[in-house]
């Protein structure tokens, strides 16, 4: 009994600490946005202080997009979510954590930046990887994260699917075979995009990393001379969305500042930080400034898959196409 009381007291003491009143925002984000939000948070704190005189501190949590959505669903008290794809916010909307109309709250489907999927290869491209078709060749080792937990991995998969559709025709059996041969070349599925980048860049595993464009550029910046970026003939337009978690922000009384935090992503300063961190800005002017980083290529969109809900239930839910075609090698 004494033990129990001590435990409870200790737990309550901790709970008390975490409730200390102060303007704090928690941004639960996906994996590759670490550097982006580190820089953006500083800018926003300054902007907000200048505008309102109020001090705000912003906490960050990063991980695979699906995993992060799951954590928010399980009670991680995020004021805002900035995730890898719309479906991960849809499931929060389904449980009433985020408003049903979240995608129309901010401009451009609530996606302040876009990105796409490219390849990162070893310096000089020794395996001669030019396009998606080179990834299914025998003996090529491909690194991509797990579509079950990672948003980037789902964009990777769908971009590959769209290419296969071009290549082998509309017949789905043949597309599946193509995708299957791609994943046969994947030796390890990390749970988030950053994990895969580390596997490829730091641990030196694999011939090619299928990566977010921003993640590929960042790896070049970090590891400079060791890699090249290869832009395939076609890819997918990735729209990583943002939303205020209204249930949490409402309870904490942070809704307005959370809203302002996301809105400022669309400002000139916000867009410039976005461009600087290798995300494609929405603002035409800022996009022009960073145009050299972003080659034009043919992009399919999630609408070509009937939207995220359809894509999710067909491909990534339990028993979906991915489960049917993927068997861990050895």
């Amino acid at each position: 009994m004494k033990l129990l009381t001590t435990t409870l007291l200790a737990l309550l003491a901790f709970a008390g600490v975490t409730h200390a009143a102060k303007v704090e925002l928690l941004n639960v984000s996906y994996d590759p946005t670490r550097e982006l939000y580190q820089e953006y948070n500083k800018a926003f704190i300054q902007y907000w202080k200048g505008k309102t005189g109020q001090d705000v501190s912003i906490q960050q949590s990063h991980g695979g997009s699906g995993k992060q959505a799951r954590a928010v669903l399980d009670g991680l008290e995020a004021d805002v979510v900035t995730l890898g794809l719309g479906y991960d916010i849809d499931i929060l909307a389904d449980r009433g954590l985020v408003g049903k109309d979240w995608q129309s709250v901010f401009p451009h489907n609530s996606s302040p930046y876009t990105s796409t999927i490219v390849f990162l290869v070893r310096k000089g491209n020794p395996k001669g990887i030019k396009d998606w078709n080179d990834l299914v060749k025998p003996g090529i080792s491909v690194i991509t994260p797990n579509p079950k937990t990672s948003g980037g991995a789902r964009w990777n998969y769908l971009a590959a699917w769209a290419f296969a559709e071009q290549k082998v025709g509309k017949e789905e059996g043949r597309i599946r075979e193509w995708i299957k041969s791609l994943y046969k070349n994947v030796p390890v599925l990390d749970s988030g995009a950053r994990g895969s980048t580390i596997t490829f860049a730091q641990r030196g595993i694999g011939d090619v990393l299928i990566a977010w464009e921003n993640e590929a550029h960042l790896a070049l910046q970090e590891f400079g001379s060791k890699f090249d970026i290869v832009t395939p003939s076609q890819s997918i337009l990735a729209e990583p969305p943002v939303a205020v978690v209204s249930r949490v922000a409402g309870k904490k009384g942070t809704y307005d500042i959370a809203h302002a935090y996301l809105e400022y992503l669309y400002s000139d300063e916000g867009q410039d930080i976005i461009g600087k961190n290798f995300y494609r800005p929405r603002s035409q002017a800022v996009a022009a400034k960073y145009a050299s980083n972003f080659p034009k290529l043919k992009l399919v969109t999630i609408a070509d898959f009937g939207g995220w809900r359809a894509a999710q239930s067909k491909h990534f839910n339990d028993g979906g196409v991915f489960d049917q075609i993927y068997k861990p090698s050895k």
Partner: protein
Amino acid sequence: MVERAPHGTRAQLIMAGATQTLTLPRFAATRPATEESRAVQWLLIAIVLLFFAAFLLLPLAMVFVEAFRKGMRVYFETLRDPDTVAAIWLTLKTAAIAVPLNTTFGLAAAWAIARFQFPGKRLLTNLIDLPLWISPVIGGLIYVLLFGSQGWFGDWLIGHDIKIIFAQPGIVLATIFVTFPFVARGLIPLMQSQGQLEEEAALTLGASGWQVFRRVTLPKIKWGLIYGVILCNARAMGEFGAVSVVSGHVRGRTNTMPLHIEILYNDYAISAAFAVASVLSLLALMTLALKTITEWRAQRQFRRALH
């Protein structure tokens, strides 16, 4: 004084045994314990030492080499970073709560199991080991299923505005879960082998239950207990899996040192990651030194109890 008496009687028995040993033929006493040639012995020792160097010493040395790769300044700047300081504090705080609780529990459990017969005793003995059998990840998930907002107590906790999962209480709970067995596991065999003659003697001399525990039992098991506490503490500070599941990975808030190391590593802050790793290693090495000392003393106590 009370606990001395039985030792005396047992020591006499041992001495009786010793006289018998002396009557054995002399060559039997000096024969080596193994038949292998010197070369084989040296080879075996060399293999063990090589293995030890390659798989333990080398990685450990690497941690410190990598930590200082970018120089002393980067090293100490990392350790001054608020998120790092918060992670170190959280780790120490978690251990400071989990270890005393598990010590109390371990003592109570060992006492009950060694001293009393009761139905379900064998089951309890096995259940104490449960956290050692199952993956720590499952240990963490149990708490998400119980206290997560989709979990059994989720609505009640939200209604009362109590945060457990993705906050520090969850981290403490998960740590308690994985470090549960360490104190009890060490004490049960010790207390069983020691028997309770001294305690019974103290009781007949009129000592109260608390006095018996404080003045008789506690001194008898002191080193075994400290050993268990140290092991428990080492695991509490180093735990990754279970804590990772319930942490939520909020920087400067719910990251313990092992989690913070992973985050820094994934941030491409390799030197910083190893700097924090070196602090964790130092804590572990200190624990190891303490452990070696107590182990030696505990063994002495254990041997004395057997004789």
